[in-house]
């Protein structure tokens, strides 16, 4: 299968190793990965902050970039960006009365998948250790981010894949379904409430005894990890794609590393 990678802006700029891990996983399954060069961002930040006119060129760019390439399905290692592509793009097109863009956005959205959904529903992966060689011998807890959980209805797909990683011990996270408080510009505009939500999330993470918190959205992990780092917590964060890509030969960074700088190591997953 020919798979187009949508790296998302945060992953592209801040967590390149997550995108490389995604490529590595798909190639290990024997698929061809292409990277539509025109891609930039899904425009979610603009839309969710109410900047609709500013979102239009961003959304248009995404639609055009992914139309330009020839591929079977597109994938992104981010629940919230996929939710934006699937639901918000057409809505924005409708708002500005551009029926043509709406149709095209719907077409791109229909074949865009979040990584765990692609692996599970399309590629039929059920055992990460057996099919991907995934090996990550650490105690890990998992935060299901809101957009993946509620907008995409990913259910247990990410956690189920993690459970099949060799050596990985998955510690249940108390009140896992509670928002971490990121919410894009919410974390700046309502910094106090966001911090209070983060404090509770991180207390729950600490209570699991795991050395690392994983999840499917780089932005939530940036938020959670940023809070843990400020507290001086030894717990770190890492995208689940990097855990799936981690093998005995090429292990992803171990969770005893201090700080939140998930995926700084350029080696992960390759």
């Amino acid at each position, binding site marked *: 299968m*020919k798979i187009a990678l949508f790296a998302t*802006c945060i*992953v*592209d*700029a*801040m967590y*390149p190793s997550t995108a*490389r891990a995604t490529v590595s996983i798909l*190639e290990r*399954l024997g698929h*061809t990965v292409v*990277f539509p*060069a*025109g*891609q*930039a961002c899904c425009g979610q930040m*603009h*839309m*969710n*902050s*109410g*900047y609709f006119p*500013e*979102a239009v*060129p*961003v959304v248009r*760019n995404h639609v055009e970039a992914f139309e330009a390439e020839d591929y079977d399905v597109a994938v992104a290692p981010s629940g919230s960006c996929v939710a934006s592509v699937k639901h918000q793009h057409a809505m924005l097109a409708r708002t500005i009365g551009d029926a043509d863009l709406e149709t095209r956005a719907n077409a791109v959205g229909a074949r865009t998948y979040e990584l765990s959904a692609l692996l599970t529903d399309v590629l039929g992966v059920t055992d990460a250790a057996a*099919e*991907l060689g995934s090996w990550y011998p650490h105690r890990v807890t998992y935060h299901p981010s*809101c957009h993946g959980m*509620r*907008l995409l209805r990913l259910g247990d797909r990410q956690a189920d894949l993690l459970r099949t990683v060799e050596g990985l011990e998955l510690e249940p996270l108390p009140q896992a*379904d*509670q*928002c971490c408080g*990121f*919410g894009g510009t*919410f*974390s*700046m505009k*309502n*910094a*106090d*409430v*966001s*911090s*209070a*939500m983060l404090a509770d999330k991180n207390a729950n993470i600490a209570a699991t005894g795991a050395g690392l918190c994983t999840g499917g959205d780089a932005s939530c992990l*940036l*938020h959670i990890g*940023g809070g843990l*780092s*400020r507290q001086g917590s030894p717990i770190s964060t890492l995208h689940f794609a990097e855990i799936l890509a981690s*093998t005995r030969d090429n292990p992803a960074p171990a969770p005893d590393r201090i*700080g*939140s*700088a998930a995926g*700084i190591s*350029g080696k992960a997953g*390759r």
Partner: protein
Amino acid sequence: MSSTYLGMPGRPVFGDGNLHATEAFPTAARRELGNAQLRANLGHATHTIRDKRLRVVAELPDWEELRDAGSAIKESVMARLPELLEEFEANFTARGGKIHWARDAAEANKTVRDLIRDAGADEVVKVKSMATQEIGLNEYLEEQGIAAFETDLAELIVQLDHDKPSHILVPAIHKNRTQIRDIFLREMPDVDPGLTNNPARLAEAARVHLRRKFLSAKVAVSGANFAIAKSGTLAVVESEGNGRMCLTLPETLITVMGVEKLLPSWQDLEVFMQLLPRSSTGERMNPYTSLWTGVTEGDGPQNVHLVLLDNGRSAALADEMGRSALHCIRCSACMNVCPVYERTGGHAYGSTYPGPIGAILSPLLTGITSEENASLPYASSLCGACYDACPVKINIPEILVHLRAEDVDSRRGTRKTPGQMDVAMKAASWAMGAGRRMALAEKALPLGKLAAGPDRKIKKLPGIAAGWTQSRDIPAPPAQSFRDWWGKERGKSAPGENAPTITRQKEKE
């Protein structure tokens, strides 16, 4: 939408009354967050109701179909509200009731006052009502020399404490038992000085206090949960039975109800009688459901009035995207699951309607005219829990985003110098509007290292991003973006040439 479709020419577009915040949400939230007792009380209460709701909702195999039905009924009501109101008016009047139209809070208040005076009363008993809180009726009546006594237990607690409700269903959710005992001891005449904080003792004290009021009151004021157009019937659902005392004992009954509460027929009520109790109190059925249709000679109130309230509802109805906020049946499920409400409580929202529904309903009813109400749609991380919980499927996150856009647009061009956020969004829009511009912007990112300490963390950012670094670090950006890496490593090879670098484990085995 014509502005006269309710038969009320010249109505103001927006509503007033207790719908306006007096300070911006972030400021109010910061203050409320500092109250540890409030947070503990709220966290405990919302989680208890939340779990109870989940349990009873899970019992119904057709819950999703019920939600769909509720949503569809409300949608059709909104589409033909004028004719349903006319049908209701005809039937209500034919049965001996009197209808009074009120375009805003001031008109509604004045109408109620006149009706009380006509009945020769200077005090009234009240059953908990969101509509009368919205218009500030109690305060208005007090100014006019009329005493209004709340009879709902929680509402009574709030009133005795000269406080404001902080939750639409559990108005005293922010108070614990000991605080309630202290209020009773301080404010109730003739209360047993040995009163403990035992819930049964507290309820008993309230009952004794209220009984005197019920027996002497000539006039009662109520809200209504539903109105049935086909028969001209009004309905109130409650838990304590005090409301029923108000609805049946006094000679005169005055109900104040928002125009959106209408249902076409009794059959439609069936759907909501399942949705409402499970969503609000986590009960299969609410203990008391009272329905009344006009006047019955020799039985119950002989003067039955209904004040039909607009107060911004026609303005909300005219907003195609926001209209569905009027589907709300005030069950409070959205606030019980909201992580923002859980931490700030209802007072931070500054309006009768707090939580996620308040964050959309208040600005819809009043318009995004004040800076304070314009801050409400931002009081959400858009986590979506409210949408999942709402029994009538109001897409609150989508309406929040719609209102944010309205706010941003309303400020466009009005400022001499655009705000930091405006500038940042414009710049990001330019960079993110093309892959090559994004690549250019990313080239500058590693400069962020300059802002980072030796531990590769950024601990302080200026301007609008300062809030982030108040409690979070940011890792220094990596030297190379993924795009850059791909261009260098893979860019030269045509698609398809990248043969798998690692043999599939399965094949190895």
